[in-house]
């Protein structure tokens, strides 16, 4: 398969079952909503070192938020419910509670509700106030008002936790670092138009793809040498002589379809720059198909057979 002169490898991205949640963060204005959300989703690129993978899903208008203020929605993913709950509480406490004017609300409904402000309320040292207020559907929601130095921190008690998928990905291979990065930027811009997904790495792009294992016994992951341009000729490389740079886009989402649709849009945007702009191949990262529960096959996704 070739799109705009860019070869699409007959391979697949291997992804894993995860647990996910969504939090709506509002503030006096978007600047402070982003300050809170950026802090909450900071250091959340990979579960390997961060415990959780998170990102900003999209901006919310005043009409879309519970308290009528501007905001952003944030998605967080972890390998298990326990870690997700721990990370959510920690990040709520250190990033949202601390951020001037910020408030946090549930962004997803589920049978599994996890603590958003349920335990954080004790920061109020006895002065916290519970309010149960019906939403537009008449369902009672519990909020906590916690006195803080800028006024009151408002948070919903719980948010929903759902089954999700993490690790959808594709690799962009090109003739120069600058051209590959430009293609990845176009891909990220396209993928951010879709709900229910986040690309957790810096700017949505990761340059340090990894393989399982290492020559060093204590390392369980190490550089993906087969895709490192500077090792062509030294290792069993996946790269032809023209490739000087490879970057990866990792996408986590609430469902298989959410990830597949965003991957399609991202790959098509990257291919939009074409061979003439130095984009040579699109590939994907996998572990032979034995570790991950979900396989995102590039060619079926791009031909519309899978969505």
């Amino acid at each position, binding site marked *: 398969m070739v799109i705009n002169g860019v070869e699409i490898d007959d391979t697949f991205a291997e992804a894993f079952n995860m647990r996910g949640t969504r939090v709506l963060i509002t503030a006096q204005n978007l600047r402070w909503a982003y300050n809170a959300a950026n802090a909450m989703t900071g250091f959340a690129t990979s579960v390997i070192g961060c415990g959780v993978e998170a990102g900003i899903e999209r901006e919310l208008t005043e009409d879309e938020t*519970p*308290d*009528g*203020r501007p905001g952003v929605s944030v998605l967080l993913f972890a390998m298990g419910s326990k870690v997700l709950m721990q990370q959510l509480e920690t990040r709520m406490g250190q990033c949202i509670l601390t951020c001037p*004017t910020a*408030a946090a609300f549930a962004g997803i409904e589920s049978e599994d509700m996890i603590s958003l402000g349920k335990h954080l309320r004790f920061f109020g040292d*006895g*002065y916290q*106030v*519970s*309010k*149960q*207020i*019906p*939403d*537009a559907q*008449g369902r*009672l929601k519990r*909020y906590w*008002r916690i006195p803080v130095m800028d*006024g*009151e921190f*408002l948070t919903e008690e719980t948010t929903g936790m759902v089954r999700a998928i993490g690790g959808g990905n594709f690799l962009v291979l090109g003739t120069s670092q600058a051209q590959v990065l430009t293609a990845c930027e176009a891909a990220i811009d396209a993928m951010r138009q879709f709900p229910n997904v986040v690309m957790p790495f810096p700017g949505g792009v990761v340059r340090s793809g990894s393989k399982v294992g290492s020559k060093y016994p204590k390392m369980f992951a190490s550089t993906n040498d087969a895709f490192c341009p500077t090792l062509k000729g030294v290792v069993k490389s996946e790269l032809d002589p023209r490739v000087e740079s490879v970057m990866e886009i990792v996408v986590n989402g609430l469902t298989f379809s959410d990830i597949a649709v965003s991957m399609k849009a991202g790959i098509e945007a990257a291919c939009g720059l074409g061979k003439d702009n130095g984009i040579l191949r699109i590939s994907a990262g996998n572990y032979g198909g034995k570790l991950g529960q979900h396989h995102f096959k590039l060619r079926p996704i791009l031909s519309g057979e899978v969505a």
Partner: protein
Amino acid sequence: MSHITLTAKPVSRQIDCRALSPQALQGKTAAEISAIKLTKTLAVAEVFEVAVDGSDAATKVTFKNTNAQHAYMGFGMTAGQVIVEGDAGDFLGAQMQNGVLICKGNAGARAGDRMRRGMLLIEGNAGDYCASDMMAGTLGVLGNTGAQLGYGMKRGTLLLAKAPALQATWIDCGMHKLPFLNILYKSFKLLDSRFAGISSLRVRRWMGDMGGLGKAEILLIQ
């Protein structure tokens, strides 16, 4: 939602309406409701005309033509809505457990007494000892409030449109803009009530009743 309308007949004595909560009337026919005894010798049919519309689980009860003689309306209600299209007697919404109670007129003494949860919205005036011993929930008054407001109130919110009489056991915490009011007002907008017109987030806050637990609040809308 089933809608039960209770139109009051003229009365010359106090009527205890505590048997007419939404949960007590849920699923009953007009004849069954008319036969309910309010006291040993007084049946509903003697003091109310009863109409029932629909039979869904969620219940809305509307009292019409009521006056200060009709006490204990919404007493202990656990869900649904009670609308009082008239004045209310003493103990309006006393011991409310949940749901929404809207009083279009004035309320008597001890409205919201020992209320635990839900919203009690009084569009007119509230009598003495409003929110006495209230444990939680939200009680709003658009009109004037009487003496001993929030006496013994433990937790919960008293939302007022008019300044209350100052009391020694309620401590002034100053002026504030509280973001949770956005959410509360949004819920008001779903109701057929003058409370839907409130929009100011700026309030003066008192905490009390310091004669007891002292974790309740009075919010005076600015």
